[in-house]
């Protein structure tokens, strides 16, 4: 276990319910979790178990009803909504299942959005975005509109957008579920913190067992609670994966 200072995320007894009319549905039923800085952390579990709600709470897009949430040293529940928004802009990168690239912007404009939100000018932001696109292998596509790219390429653009402002936390929601094995592998390799990027914590919510072997640790959720948190070896035994699950499709 890492020291308190090395912890990127610390969650204590977090609860969240949704109300629809008179019906209250508890979704998170007391989550306790710690995620270390630089960790590639997976959250897995069946549909409806609360994975998406948990990452929404962790990154501050959703407010918890109860419990303590400390992310990168900030007590999110104590922050005013405007400060939570500013916190996300500065410290969090997002990779969505459906990419959510703005179709009327070019690839480089899409990638530059997080920097624009931080107040950077268009030229400076697009220069940094172009460099990031080079790093994810899409340097030749900067002027294209997203719809002209394949699904894998769009997800790489989304990853570039998540990384461009060098956030300390990246939250990924099913980043490979719409991709073939080879493209999924490439996407996971891009998300995996490399040497010199130790401070970057990546949380991945996924249903895709092909990617489990990338994780440093895996939290298995069920019915609104974390059943267990597994290290690599334990996860390999539990899910039966081998070091190289992805194989080229051709």
């Amino acid at each position: 276990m890492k020291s308190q200072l090395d912890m990127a995320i610390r969650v204590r007894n977090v609860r969240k319910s949704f109300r629809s009319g008179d019906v209250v549905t508890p979704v998170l039923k007391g989550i306790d979790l710690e995620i270390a800085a630089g960790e590639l952390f997976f959250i897995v579990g069946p549909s409806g178990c609360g994975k998406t709600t948990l990452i929404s709470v962790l990154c501050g897009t959703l407010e918890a009803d109860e419990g303590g949430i400390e992310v990168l040293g900030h007590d999110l529940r104590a922050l005013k909504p405007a400060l939570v928004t500013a916190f996300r802009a500065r410290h969090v990168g997002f990779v969505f299942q459906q990419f959510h690239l703005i179709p009327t912007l070019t690839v480089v404009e899409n990638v530059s959005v997080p920097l624009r939100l931080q107040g950077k000018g268009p030229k400076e932001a697009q220069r940094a975005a172009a460099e990031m696109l080079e790093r994810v292998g899409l340097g030749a596509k900067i002027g294209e509109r997203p719809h002209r790219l394949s699904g894998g390429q769009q997800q790489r653009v989304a990853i570039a957008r998540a990384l461009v402002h060098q956030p300390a936390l990246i939250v990924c929601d099913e980043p490979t579920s719409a991709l073939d094995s080879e493209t999924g592998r490439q996407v996971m390799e891009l998300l995996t913190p490399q040497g010199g990027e130790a401070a970057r914590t990546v949380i991945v919510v996924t249903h895709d067992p092909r990617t489990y072997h990338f994780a440093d640790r895996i939290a298995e959720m069920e019915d609104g609670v974390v059943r267990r948190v597994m290290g690599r070896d334990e996860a390999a035994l539990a899910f039966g994966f081998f070091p190289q699950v992805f194989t080229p499709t051709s």
Partner: protein
Amino acid sequence: MTDVALQMLYGDRAKYALLISGVCFSAVLMAQGLAMFFGILSFSYATLENVRAPIWVVDPKIEQIADNQPLKDTDADRVRSVSGVAWAVPFYSGQTQARVLSSGESKPVTLIGLDAATLAGAPARVVAGAMLDLRRAQSVVVDEETAVRLGRDREHSLRVGDVFEMNDRRAEIVGIVKAKQGQGGASYVFTTFDRAREYGFPQRKMITHVLAAPRQGLSVEEAAARISRETGLRAYTEAEFKNASSQWMLTNTPIPFVVGLIVGIGFLVGVIVAGQTFYNFVLENTRFLGALKAMGASNARIARMTVLQAGIVGFTGYGIGMGLLTLFFRGLPEGRAPLLLQWPVAVIVFAAVILIIAFASFLGIRSVFRIEPAMVFRT
């Protein structure tokens, strides 16, 4: 983020065109309704535009230019004797029938009798012949519309030298002028005051108005006030008489109601079409706006982007709409169509478009505020 907001708007040209066309259509509807309103209103004071005089002196009971309450023959002299009046001349305006000799067909015309010595108030834009030839016997000057109407049974409209009859008296055309059509589409025949006595329907007193002007250094308003005070007659400045004539039409005809209905429908169409289209535009962008919110865009920032987009759509639609309408109006025959695209039309339509934009923005911002950033994980 201004450029991002604009890119989101301009990026889908079909949607952008649809958004603009809603506002454009609405602006055109409202502007043409208002132009029609001002156009019809301007008919009420057409004589005042065709016969230019700084001061119009009438019977105190007169409310508008078309009212006919003759003055005494001595009234022109009384006005002339008021201190501060440079000149004052008798004037006649009335209806009569013009008969085409070749076919015997009669057409109603507005007969204008001008002071023979000065021809004060004569129309300024002569297209053929000369106003001064009115001093010749049996001479008249007609406007283009009269020339066309009386020449319908010929190969061409009437020209200088052609002859017709009014009140069984011969009238030879010595000039053709441009003039604005009056109420009921009336066309004009100009002659001298004395000759108008013969051409018009006979009545005991023939002076319908006295035209006057102030001496140099005295304002028109002051001179008009002096005339009213010293003669007991009513002296209008040109602007006051136009305004009084318009007011009379507004309060005594259903025109404001009819035009108000057209303008109101245009506004409603704008609100519904532009508001709904813009609301749909925001709804279609919900997941992208949600992604922006998740990535750290505040509600205020996205609201500003939405207002900017609505503003661009509104102003562009307004500009195109007014531009197209201006071009269309320029293609219409001058003075005939009851359409007047004056600056108040542009201002009123602009204000209405601002309201439409505000409504569209309100709908858009309301839906933006309802977007939960967490929704991007569910869609």
